[in-house]
């Protein structure tokens, strides 16, 4: 049902926002639009399938395509801090705030993005971790810095370490020249919320078609309940935890009562 709605959505979006120059059409489908994180969740690979179709009897399909899939998680604001030795001990001395950046970012393509198209196109379309806009708060303004800014490098490196950011130049496989599949790697601690999936098709370094899809990650069961309670009802949650502690202590004193 969900899949059908999503598919219809994709088609509707394509119909409305189709690029006039495009001779190709992208149709994609996701194995699962709603990922539920339960206590046993250890990460999951979501499979995205798609086909390239000629647009209503136009020119024949070309022989070689390139495909880039960009998956973006819900936005969040983070602070990256740098330690420095002060009087012999390591102290956080400097920090940068990254404002409304994706909590999850995966760039999946059939070959390294630098080989797909020109640098200025990559930059304009925000393809690749180097080219994705990661705005930092600089004084009163928000701006992305140069690619080799030490804080930006450190931020991206730490996010890659946590498997939240990734750029995989071999993640998209063409099963036939016009049918492709890719796996979106979701780590165990994947952030919850709405994800957008942006699929871009290139031929000879030029974007010829583009479509998008969506995905929702939710927590399920006990975990969800506990996480929600901790955030929304801090005081009640604290009182409940305290009562739990007293109960545990009391049970222990009863169970282990001597003589």
């Amino acid at each position: 049902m969900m899949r059908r709605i999503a598919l219809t959505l994709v088609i509707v979006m394509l119909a409305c926002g189709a690029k006039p120059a495009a001779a190709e059409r992208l149709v994609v489908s996701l194995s699962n639009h709603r990922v539920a994180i339960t206590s046993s969740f250890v990460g999951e690979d979501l499979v995205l399938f798609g086909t390239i179709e000629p647009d209503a009897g136009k020119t024949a399909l070309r022989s070689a395509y390139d495909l880039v899939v960009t998956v973006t998680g819900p936005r969040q604001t983070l602070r990256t801090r740098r330690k420095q030795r002060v009087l012999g001990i390591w102290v956080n001395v400097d920090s940068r705030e990254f404002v409304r950046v994706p909590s999850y970012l995966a760039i999946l393509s059939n070959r390294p993005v630098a080989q797909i198209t020109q640098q200025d196109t990559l930059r304009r379309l925000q393809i690749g971790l180097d080219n994705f806009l990661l705005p930092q708060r600089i004084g009163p303004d928000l701006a992305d810095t140069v690619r080799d800014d030490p804080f930006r490098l450190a931020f991206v490196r730490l996010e890659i370490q946590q498997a939240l950011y990734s750029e995989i130049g071999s993640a998209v496989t063409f099963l036939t020249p016009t049918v492709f599949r890719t796996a979106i790697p979701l780590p165990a601690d994947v952030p919850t919320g709405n994800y957008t999936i942006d699929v871009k098709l290139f031929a000879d370094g030029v974007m010829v078609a583009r479509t998008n899809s969506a995905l929702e990650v939710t927590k399920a069961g006990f975990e969800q309940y506990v996480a929600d309670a901790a955030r929304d009802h801090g005081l009640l949650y604290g009182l409940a935890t305290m009562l739990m502690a007293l109960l545990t202590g009391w049970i222990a004193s009863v169970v282990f009562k001597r003589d």
Partner: protein
Amino acid sequence: MPVNIFLVLGMGLAVGYISGMFGIGGGFLMTPLLIFIGVSPAVAVASVASHIAASSFSGAINYWNRRALDLALALMLLSAGIIGTATGVWLFTTLRALDQLDLMIGLSYVTLLTIVGGLMIYESVRAVVRARHGLPATIRRPGSHTWLHGLPFKLRFKRSKIYVSAIPVWAIGFIIGFVGAIMGIGGGFLLVPMLIYFLRVPTATVIGTSMVLTLITMASATVMHAATNHLVDAVLALILMVGGVVGAQFGARTGQKMRGERLRLLLGLLVFAVGLRFAYALVVQPDDLYSIRLLGGE
């Protein structure tokens, strides 16, 4: 947070064993252990508070049944302890916003544990040496009156048979509450010596009284941390509690078989070692100079 349940349960058991053996809450061991296995210091401090509340409640019940507990003194300490805890939670929140919380927690541990551990080692080694020379192992009690007894607002605590000024009682209560909230420790290993040396509380009531205080400060620290910082992890806390209370029962049995000064020497060494471990973590260059902290999502 991907932390192994069995590892945490095992740590709860081990720390519970030690805490039962020495008659302490074990927060000063539990919090560092959690930090060393990768729980963020902020969450560790906040969650351990509830773990200590559980173990001190079961201890307090025991002492209450044996009437080895001075409720009046505990309540007096507490009136200042709550203010100390609130101040501690406030400072905790402020430091966290300034990105200096982890540093502060580390520094507090180094300072407190090396000093307390060093003093305990010194005192118990002397006692052991005295015992070996055939002298009584008991520590000489200094003169019965110090300047602390000259202070105004005197109060009489019947169960403990002491007559002291309210000022040092409040000061001690405040310090314990404050330190507990910042460091995630019950403060039993600080409170017991302070009560004995400064207020001359007899050994019969000192541990029970300390447990009541620990119980209430830690229970309120749990609530305050949960309400202000949203850092208490109830699942983590529950696993720790269960491990802790079970371990404590077995530890208590071992503790009763050991000689007092030996026990204090061991505890002193343990406290000192944890302090050194924290010093090492502060001084050695971290693997990664950069770290990320979440400010807010949407």
